[in-house]
């Protein structure tokens, strides 16, 4: 008998069926990963298991007892005690006005576990166990005084306080930097081995799932596409969708490195950039060059200064000192374009696709109304969007379509340099792969130069010719992509690379 057995679970949200008959099981001490893109129903399934969003039908057997139809009052006895939850977004998952010690002790308090002193002792033990220094001090701090990784450790401590037999971890690391991500996953793994706790990991990242789990469940549009032993699934995926996921996941598709860039003159020359924000040095002496027609990646974790550098290059921010040259560009706003991380935020919600793409043409008074109209259609065609979308508003488009519109707008005035600020980070892997392909094709056809800002090494490996690694405002290492990935010289680069999950070596 399994610890958890979910049979034919159906869940709907406001009339829409998000989970359409899902079955999965988790054995004692087993690590099971549920993988899927946004809208696959993976998080809904997880919430239904602990009854936070009850299912419509199906069975949820916990140690052989069906809890699917239990009242909230009965479920409360199980939550926290037998099933612990590690949530997605550590920055908002703790009550901001309560000390973290109290929030860990709460699990014990709700289940009337021990007295005040014994609870306090247990909280300190837990804080130490999850790897926080100086537990007594940490317990008295508020969430905002801790880093993202530390908050996630606190949430884990609260989840394991009563040694539940199952932990449900819903995207526990997707909001964290890669190096922190790895340490958190290591911690969850350690705890599993120490306590014999089973783990149900919900994730969009096939790389993480593959690296950590015993068994895989691949979900898509509310259905299980495939499930089985992780090794077996990866070696011989049965479902076409799994094969596509594997092919699209940049971490797993060990494509060949790009050739070093053709020997062309520089399209971007950056010299000794320095930028301070209220005494804090966000960018500290950054220099690099990008050859015409090539892609240069700026890689780093949050706070490394990569986005500030991009904003200085695009003149949305002024550097305190240093210079940026874009040789051959006379009209700056025509020659250099920026594509944003969040396409929804960068498109005016009240304008149609046609108006959005046309705007730069109007700004530079290029052509009359009819000529502009033709050009807009041509641009949509370039980014492989059907003409039928011309009159749609951004909210009526999918994430991938929105980013294509943003790219079409950037291309409208025939720029030489396009700066892409985490331009594919918010997209699902299959969509991400399509946009990356589009970018490569546009570069070949139009001879574009890209400055590609990303935290995702796997994506960078795929698209860029050359790479600069940034840490704390400085470039710690530069070189061709192959040099950086195959023979990193700097310790920080090595740490970053080690953090990339790479199960298929």
């Amino acid at each position, binding site marked *: 008998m399994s610890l958890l057995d979910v049979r034919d679970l159906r869940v709907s949200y406001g009339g829409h069926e998000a989970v359409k008959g899902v079955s999965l099981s988790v054995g004692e001490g087993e690590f099971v990963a549920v993988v899927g893109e946004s809208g696959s129903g993976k998080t809904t399934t997880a919430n239904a298991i602990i009854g936070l969003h009850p299912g419509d039908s199906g069975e949820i057997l916990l140690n052989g007892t069906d809890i699917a139809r239990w009242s909230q009052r009965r479920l*409360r006895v199980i*939550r*926290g005690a037998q099933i*612990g939850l590690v949530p997605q*977004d550590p920055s908002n*998952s703790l*009550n901001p*006005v309560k000390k973290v010690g109290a929030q860990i002790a709460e699990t014990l308090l709700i289940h009337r576990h021990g007295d005040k002193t014994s609870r306090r002792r247990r909280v300190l033990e837990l804080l130490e166990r999850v790897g926080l220094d100086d537990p007594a001090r940490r317990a008295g701090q508020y969430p905002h005084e801790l880093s993202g990784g530390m908050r996630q450790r606190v949430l884990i401590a*609260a989840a394991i306080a009563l040694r539940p037999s199952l932990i449900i971890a819903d995207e526990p690391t997707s909001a964290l930097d890669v190096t922190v991500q790895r340490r958190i996953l290591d911690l969850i793994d350690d705890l599993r081995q120490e306590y014999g706790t089973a783990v149900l990991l919900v994730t969009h990242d096939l790389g993480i799932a593959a690296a950590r789990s015993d068994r895989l469940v691949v979900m898509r549009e509310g259905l299980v596409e495939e499930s089985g032993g992780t090794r077996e699934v990866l070696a011989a995926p049965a479902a076409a969708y799994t094969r596509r996921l594997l092919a699209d996941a940049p971490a797993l598709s060990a494509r060949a490195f790009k050739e070093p860039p053709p020997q062309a003159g520089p399209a971007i020359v950056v010299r000794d950039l320095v930028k301070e924000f209220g005494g804090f040095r966000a960018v500290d002496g950054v220099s690099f060059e990008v050859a015409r027609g090539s892609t240069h990646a700026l890689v780093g974790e949050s706070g490394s200064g990569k986005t500030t550098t991009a904003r200085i290059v695009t003149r949305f921010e002024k550097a305190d000192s240093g210079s940026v040259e874009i040789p051959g560009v006379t009209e700056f706003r025509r020659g250099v374009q920026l594509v944003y991380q969040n396409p929804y935020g960068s498109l005016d919600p009240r304008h149609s696709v046609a108006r959005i793409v046309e705007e730069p043409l109007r700004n530079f008074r290029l052509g009359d109304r009819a000529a502009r109209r033709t050009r807009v259609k041509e641009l949509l065609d370039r980014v492989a969007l059907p003409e039928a979308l011309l009159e749609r508003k951004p909210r009526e488009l999918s994430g991938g379509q929105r980013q294509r519109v943003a790219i079409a707008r950037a291309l409208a005035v025939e720029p030489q340099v396009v700066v892409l600020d985490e331009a594919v980070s918010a997209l699902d892997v299959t969509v991400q792969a399509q946009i990356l392909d589009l970018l490569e094709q546009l570069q070949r056809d139009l001879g574009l130069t890209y400055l590609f800002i990303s935290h995702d090494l796997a994506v960078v490996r795929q698209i860029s010719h050359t790479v600069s690694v940034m840490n704390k405002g400085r470039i710690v290492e530069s070189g061709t992509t192959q040099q950086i990935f195959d023979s990193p010289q700097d310790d920080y680069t090595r740490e970053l690379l080690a953090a990339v999950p790479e199960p298929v070596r």
Partner: protein
Amino acid sequence: MRVGQALLVLWAAFTAAYILLQAMPGDSILIKFQNPELGLSPQQIAEIRAYYDAGGYLHTVLGFLRGDFGYSVDTGTPVLERLAEGLPETAKLATAAFVLAVLLAVLIAFAASHSSRLRGVLLAVPSLFISVPAFWLGILLIQVFSFRLGLVPVIGGSEIQQLILPVLTLAVPISAPIAQVLARSLDQVFTQPFVPVVAAKGASRSWILWRHVARNALPPTLTVAGLTFGELIAGSVVTETVFGRNGVGRLTEQAVNAQDTPVLLAVVVLAATVFVLVNLLVDLVFPVLDPRLAR
């Protein structure tokens, strides 16, 4: 920083009041004071003349700070004296009304958050409260409780009896924005990601409401409660007029009728001062409620 801003606002309010006072032709004021109907002695008129002759920006604004607002055009007595007469009555009324308003608001918002069946009805109550003219509400209350039911005597009665209806009249419109903001904040906090996390620890809805959500919903509610202080003073004008109570509100009404600008400006400056100080206090309390704002 925040203190400086509050002082700046007060200074600007004082200055505006000064400019308005200057806008009145000075001699015409003195002519009014010399009206024999006021029955002022020559000595008193000399005092008043000295006050207005001294004039000057610094003199007047410093006077405001000391509580010296000049002389009432209507009665010839110092403005401060007239204010002091009405203040205790109004303070009593306003304090009681504020407490009642907060109680009403908390009751409505928490009941709406607890009961999904009554929710729709309860959340409609504040919009109704805010749409009722205070003077009409007062009249309605007199009609129902004094004339129909005979529960509260129209004239006479104990002090408490005399306070009940005015307090209710003043409290109802003020409770509405507090209830609205509190209910909305409660809803909004309930959608925050940390709520399901607490639920996943095994907490019940009322545990979450009282131990987590309420505290997080407090700051915006406190802000709006602070903003209603101005309405308390304005509302007392109507309430005191309807119920014939002698307080600052009634004084204000009389001042406008008598074109008694110095008295009205004194009330305005007083109201602005109370408002700014209360809201400054609210801002200073914030870091205690929300540690993220503490340095």
